[in-house]
């Protein structure tokens, strides 16, 4: 069988790019959300958590309503050559939207359990707020942040519903592992579907393994 590896690389680049985006966005939102007044924080919380509870097809529908080629924003972006419909970076958009709640919530949980006196101590020692954020707050919270990153990556990789609605399935253009499995199964290519199922299982196992390895290293560091 001459395998076309495009879905693998496409899934990987979508997951990797959206993981980076979601990392920065989620960490920033989590950091600033903690400083907002309660009502605004509640509203932001709800908005950011929504994709977690909505069926991905509903998220996909909503994204189509915003970025669809006949919608105002979609038309405006298309004029500058940016199209989210039927492109691989449309997949980045959908994967980011569904993965963001996971990153945001785990990062916020980590930040909320951070002992704020450490930041105060840094300030009175003359350390800049940016230094305190990257060299104290993030390392101390790294366990929570890291599991957020891994969860987001896994979720982005496994995204199917919203992706299939926004970017569909076009071999060699938008096909991801998840959409390929469905497409091959639908067209009675049992062997092909099973192959991609095994690939997906392999990636997921690798992700989980790296997570537990990181965990183990962190624990032994703590004891040393």
């Amino acid at each position: 069988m001459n395998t076309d590896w495009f879905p693998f690389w496409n899934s990987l680049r979508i997951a990797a790019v959206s993981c980076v985006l979601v990392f920065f966005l989620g960490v920033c939102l989590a950091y600033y959300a903690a400083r907002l007044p309660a009502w605004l924080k509640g509203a932001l919380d709800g908005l950011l958590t929504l994709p977690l509870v909505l069926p991905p097809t509903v998220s996909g529908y909503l994204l189509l309503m915003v970025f669809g080629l006949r919608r105002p924003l979609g038309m405006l972006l298309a004029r500058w050559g940016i199209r989210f419909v039927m492109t691989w970076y449309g997949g980045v958009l959908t994967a980011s939207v569904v993965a963001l709640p996971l990153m945001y919530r785990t990062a916020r949980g980590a930040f909320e359990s951070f002992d704020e006196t450490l930041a105060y101590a840094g300030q009175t020692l003359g350390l800049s707020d940016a230094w305190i954020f990257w060299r104290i707050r993030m390392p101390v919270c790294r366990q929570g942040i890291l599991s957020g990153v891994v969860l987001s990556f896994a979720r982005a990789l496994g995204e199917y519903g919203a992706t299939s609605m926004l970017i569909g399935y076009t071999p060699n253009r938008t096909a991801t592992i998840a959409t390929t499995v469905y497409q091959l199964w639908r067209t009675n290519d049992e062997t092909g579907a099973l192959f991609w199922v095994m690939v997906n299982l392999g990636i997921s196992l690798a992700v989980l393994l790296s997570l537990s390895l990181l965990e183990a290293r962190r624990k032994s560091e703590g004891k040393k």
Partner: protein
Amino acid sequence: MSLKVDITKKYGSFTLQVSMETGEGITGLLGASGGGKSLTLKCIAGIEKPDEGRVELNGRVLLDSAAGIDLPPQRRGVGYCFQSYALFPHMTVEKNILCGLRREKSRPIREEKLRDILDLLQLSGLESLRPAQLSGGQQQRVALARILVNAPELLLLDEPLSALDAHLRDMLKVELRKLLEDYGRPALLVTHSRDEAYDMCREIGVIDRGELLVLKPTRELFADPERVEAARITGCKNIALAERTGEHTAFVPAWGVELTAARPLGPGLRAVGVRAHHFHSREERNRFPVVFVREMEEPFETILQFRFASQAADAPPVWWRLSKDIRPVVLPAALGVAPEDILPLYS
């Protein structure tokens, strides 16, 4: 060397109102927990923003809400030792201390200062350990090293000894006092322990429910606490409401006695206080018949609780504390107090 603080901050129904001026040496802030001592330190360090006020250190204005000045903590030159020490858990002892030296650009000078402070605080050999691997006393020394190496103009110490075991506390108290004296710059020490405050501080301010009641030299404060809460916090066990009856006399309804005080009594007199060890069996002045009700023994002292013969039925018993070796076998029928030991207290 001078620190001028005048701040107001509201938290719901709690209002912090502190106005004080202090200089050389260690100044204590004594009070019950939740009274606003730590909040005062945080406002001086710039971690908390007072609603309004002014903080001035050695002529530098750190905060002036009227003039719109509010220096960030980084630029206040104030060192803050947290009750929990706030050591960065992911850094070694050396990295923690180097955090206080980041403004020093020259590497050799940085290394030299690091060596000096490690020697001074007896931390040599622990450089590569993490905070979790240190004892409480070592953690405290690292916290102090990190602050002192940064050479702040003012040190703020929030309950520096309270996280330590009792037997360590007394030893480290002596070390800490010497360290602060050698450092030679003023320090504000927050504590709820009157013994700690008495031993370490040149002067003490008493803070109760957000208000600075009184600030005076340590011995004077214990000799004349002026305010009811200040008397209580400095350990006065016997406090009762009193009515002024003359220039030097006051009637205490709860005890049913009229006491003569050496200090002149002001018209606003609210209560009188008598420290438990100021009763004497052979004192002839302020002498009244008593009935003993209970004894509480401590390792080296004993507390005899008694009632004045004329005492109101619902008033709590009075405490007499004395060393065990002078406790009379037959308890006296009357006790007296020297007039100079009657503390006039105002509200």
